[in-house]
C-alpha cells in the first residue's frame, strides 16, 4: 500500500508529459502546480514592486509616468494577493492536508484539477491587461468606484480575472472543508487534528463566505461601467461609499484568509524545533475561530475617513481592537511553546521565529491603526503601507517560506541546503526591515500612499526603502537556487525529516510517494 515502487509514475496508467499535468487529479501534483504558479506570480508582482521603488528612489518623475505608476501599484496588489499569497496557501493545503489527516487525496479530485487550471487564464487576463488600450486598471487594488468606473478595458479584464480566481478559490475551499470533515483517518477527532488543518478549515469557511461578496462588488462595477446601472453613482441614486462597504466586507476577512493558514504553518513548526508540544492547542483553535468571526464585524475600520457617524466609528474601533486579544493569545502560545524547550534553529525554525517577531510588529501597528482618531492621521499614508507589508510579507510570506523549508524534504526527498536557507532568511529579514521600517516614519510625517512623486522631506527614507526593496527582491532568487538544488539532490531525507517532527505526514517516506494512505492509518 504505502510501499514505494522505484518509479511510481510509470507504474501508473495516466498520461505523461504535459498531459499528465493538465489532467492530474493527484493532490500532490496539484499542490506542486499551485506553488509553482504562485511563485511565478510572486516574482511578477515583485518586478512591479521594484519598478515602483525605482520611481520612488528620488523625488521627481524619472522612470514611469503617473498613470502607469498607478497601474503598477494596482497590479502589484492584485497579483500579490490573488496570484501569489492565496494560491500558495492553497498549494500547501493540497499537499499537506491529506497527508496530515491520513486521507488518500482531496475529496473532489477532479474539481481540484479544475480549480487550479482556472488560475493561469486569470493570470493571463491580469498581466495581459497591461497591453490593452489604456493599459491595466489603475484604480488601486481596492478598485474603488467611481474611479474604477472611469478606467479603460483593463478594468474589465481585471474584473473577469477576479471572477475566475474567485470561482477557483471557492472550489478549493469547498474541497478543503469536505476533505477535512469527511476524510480524516479513524481516530483523528477534530481536536486531534494538526493546527494547520484547523486554520485551513476555518479559512475555507471564510473564503466561501466572502468571495461571492467580492464577485458581487466587481460585477456591480461592471454593470455600472457598461450596462447603465448606477449602483455607485449618486446621480442615479447610488452611493460610491456602498462599494467600499461591500468591498471591505470581503476585504477584511480576506486579510485573515491570508494570515490564518500562516498561523497554522507556524504552529506546526515551532513545536518541532522546540521539541515540545504546542502550548494551548485548544485555545489556538478557539482563537482562530474568534478571529474569523470577529473579522466579519470590523470592515469599516478601513473607512474611518469616509465620514461615518460617531457611533459607527466607535463600534468598528472597539470591534477591531478586540481582534488584538485572540491574536495576542496566539503569540503568547507560540512563545510559551518555545519556553523551556530544547530549541534548534534550522532554516524553518528561523523563518518561524522571524515570523513571530516581525508579524507582531505589524500587529502593534494594526492596533494603533484601529484607534479611529490615529487612523484619521495615518489612513492612506505609508504608515498603512508599512503595516500591511509587516503582516503580509513578514507574516504570510515568511510563514510560507518557513513551511516550504519545513516540508521540502517531504516533497523532494532531499534536505534543503541549510547555509543557503539561512542566507535567504537573514537577507530577507534585514532587507525587509530596511524596506518597510522607514515607511512608518514616512507615513507619520505625512506621505500619502499611491503617489509617484513626493515632497523633499521624504527623500532620504524613500531612497533607503528603495535600496532595501532591491535587496529583498534579489534575496528571493536564493530560494529558487535552494529549491532547484533540493529537487536535484542533496542529503537524503528520512521519513521523519526533522528530529522531533510529529504528525502523519512524517510516517510516509520522503519523497512522499504518488499515492499515500490508500488504506487509512489508525490514529491512536
Amino acid at each position, binding site marked *: 500500500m504505502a510501499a514505494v515502487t522505484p518509479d511510481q509514475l510509470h507504474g501508473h496508467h495516466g498520461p505523461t508529459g504535459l498531459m499528465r499535468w493538465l489532467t492530474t487529479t493527484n493532490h500532490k501534483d496539484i499542490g506542486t502546480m499551485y506553488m509553482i504558479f504562485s511563485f511565478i506570480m510572486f516574482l511578477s508582482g515583485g518586478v512591479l514592486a521594484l519598478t515602483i521603488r525605482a520611481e520612488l528612489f528620488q523625488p*521627481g518623475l524619472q522612470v514611469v509616468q503617473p498613470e502607469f505608476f498607478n497601474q503598477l501599484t494596482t497590479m502589484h496588489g492584485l497579483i500579490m494577493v490573488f496570484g501569489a499569497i492565496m494560491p500558495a496557501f492553497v498549494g500547501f493545503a493540497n499537499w499537506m492536508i491529506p497527508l496530515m489527516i491520513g486521507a488518500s487525496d482531496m475529496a473532489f479530485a477532479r474539481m481540484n484539477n479544475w480549480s487550479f487550471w482556472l488560475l493561469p487564464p486569470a493570470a493571463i487576463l491580469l498581466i495581459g491587461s497591461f497591453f490593452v488600450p489604456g493599459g491595466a486598471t489603475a484604480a488601486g487594488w481596492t478598485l*474603488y468606484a467611481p474611479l474604477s468606473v472611469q478606467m479603460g478595458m483593463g478594468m474589465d479584464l481585471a474584473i473577469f480575472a477576479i471572477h475566475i480566481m474567485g470561482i477557483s478559490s471557492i472550489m478549493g475551499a469547498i474541497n478543503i472543508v469536505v476533505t477535512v470533515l469527511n476524510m480524516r483517518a479513524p481516530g483523528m477527532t477534530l481536536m486531534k487534528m494538526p493546527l494547520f488543518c484547523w486554520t485551513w478549515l476555518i479559512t475555507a469557511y471564510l473564503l466561501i463566505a466572502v468571495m461571492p461578496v467580492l464577485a458581487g462588488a466587481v460585477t456591480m462595477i461592471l454593470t455600472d461601467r457598461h450596462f447603465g446601472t448606477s449602483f455607485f453613482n*449618486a446621480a442615479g441614486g447610488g452611493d460610491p*461609499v456602498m462599494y467600499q462597504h461591500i468591498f471591505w466586507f470581503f476585504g477584511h476577512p480576506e486579510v485573515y484568509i491570508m494570515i490564518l493558514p500562516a498561523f497554522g504553518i507556524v504552529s506546526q513548526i515551532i513545536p518541532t524545533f522546540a521539541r515540545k*508540544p504546542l502550548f494551548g492547542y485548544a485555545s489556538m483553535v478557539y482563537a482562530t475561530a474568534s478571529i474569523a468571526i470577529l473579522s466579519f464585524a470590523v470592515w469599516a475600520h478601513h473607512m474611518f475617513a469616509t*465620514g461615518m457617524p460617531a457611533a459607527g466609528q466607535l463600534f468598528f474601533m472597539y470591534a477591531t481592537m478586540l481582534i488584538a*486579544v485572540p491574536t495576542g493569545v496566539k503569540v503568547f502560545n507560540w512563545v510559551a511553546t518555545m519556553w523551556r524547550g530544547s530549541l534548534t534553529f534550522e532554516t524553518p525554525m528561523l523563518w518561524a521565529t522571524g515570523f513571530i517577531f516581525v508579524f507582531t510588529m505589524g500587529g502593534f501597528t494594526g492596533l*494603533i491603526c484601529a*484607534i479611529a482618531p490615529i487612523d484619521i492621521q495615518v489612513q492612506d*499614508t505609508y504608515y498603512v503601507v508599512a503595516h500591511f507589508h509587516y503582516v503580509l510579507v513578514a507574516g504570510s510570506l515568511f510563514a510560507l517560506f518557513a513551511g516550504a523549508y519545513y516540508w521540502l524534504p517531504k516533497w523532494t526527498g532531499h534536505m534543503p541546503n541549510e547555509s543557503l536557507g539561512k542566507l535567504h532568511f537573514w537577507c530577507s529579514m534585514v532587507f525587509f526591515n530596511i524596506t518597510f521600517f522607514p515607511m512608518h516614519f514616512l507615513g507619520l510625517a505625512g506621505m500619502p500612499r499611491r503617489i509617484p512623486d513626493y515632497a523633499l522631506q521624504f527623500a532620504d527614507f524613500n531612497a533607503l526603502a528603495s535600496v532595501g526593496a532591491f535587496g529583498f527582491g534579489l534575496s528571493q532568487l536564493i530560494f529558487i537556487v535552494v529549491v532547484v538544488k533540493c529537487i536535484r539532490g542533496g542529503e537524503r531525507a528520512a521519513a521523519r525529516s526533522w528530529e522531533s517532527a510529529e504528525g502523519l505526514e512524517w510516517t510516509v517516506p520522503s519523497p512522499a510517494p504518488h499515492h499515500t494512505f490508500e488504506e487509512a492509518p489508525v490514529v491512536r
Partner: protein
Amino acid sequence: MRVPNFVWHHRPHLPNPHLLGVVMGRAGRIAGFPLLSYAALSCAQEPHARYNLQQPVTGIAEQINDMHTLMLVICLFIFVGVFGVMFWAVFKHRKSKGAVAAHFHENTAVEIAWTVIPILILLGMAWPATKTVIEMKDTSNPDITVKATGYQWKWGYDYLQGEGEGIRFLSALSTPRTQIEGGAPKGDAYLLEVDNPLVVPVGKKIRVLLTANDVIHSWWVPAFGVKQDAIPGFIRDTWFRADKEGIYRGNCAELCGRDHGFMPVVVHVLSAEKYAAWVAEQKVKAAAFDAPDPAAPDRTQAPGVQVATAGKG
C-alpha cells in the same frame, strides 16, 4: 488602566519630543535599523516632521499625537515583555546549551490571565480615543463654513458662511512641471504649494463641508488632525480650529487618478486683522470682475455648483 492614565494626565509635563525620541530610538534599535542618533532629534525643531506625526496646531491633532505616543509606549512595554521572554528562550533554552524540553502544554490560569489583561489594556486605550472621536465629530456652531470640492486634480473652495462669505476660488498645484521632470531645481515646498491657498483666521472654528465632482478625493491637513473623504454626490463635514498662525500643508489622501500625487491642500492661518484684510482684498478683486459669477476663474466652476445643489437636495 493605570499606566495609560498616568501618561495621559501628565501630558503637559512630559515633553513629547523627548519621550518620542526615546521611543522611536528604541523602536529603531529593536528593528535593527540605525536610527538612534537621528531619532533623538525630534521633529519639533524642524520645519518638517521626519520621524513622527507633524507638529499639531489644533486641539484634536494634539490629542491624536498624545494618544499615538501613549500607544507607542504601551506597545513598547508589551513588545519588550513578550520578546524579552521569547529571546530569553531563544538564547537560553537551546539544545546546544543542553536544554532538555519540558512537557507542559497548557495552563488554564496563565491562559485566562493573558486573555483578560489585554482586554483591560484595550479598555485603557479605548477611553481617550472615544472622547476624541466624539469631539472630532462635533461640527456644530462653526465661526466660518467653507465648502471644499475635489476635482481631478485640484480643490475648489466656497466660503459659505461667516466672515468672507461669498468668496470662491480654485486651488491647484503651483509647482512648475520643469521641477517635477528634473529640468529645474526643486523648491522648498515642492509638490506642497498651490496658487490659491485656503485662508482662515486663527482661533476660529472652521467647518469644512466636503464633496467632489468626479471621483472620491480626501482633504487632509496633518497638522490639523483632519482627513475627510470628499465623495461625489454627497456632502460630508469636518472641522478644525487652528491655534497658531502659519502655513499648513497636506495632500489629497484618496487615490483619484493620474495626478492624485499632485493636488496638495495648503491652508494659510492668519491673525484676525490679516484675515479681515484678505477678505477685503478678495471682495475688491471680485468686484473688479463684475460678473454674476464673480470669482469663478473658468468653466470648471459650473460642475461644482451642480454637485453642491445635487448633494444638498
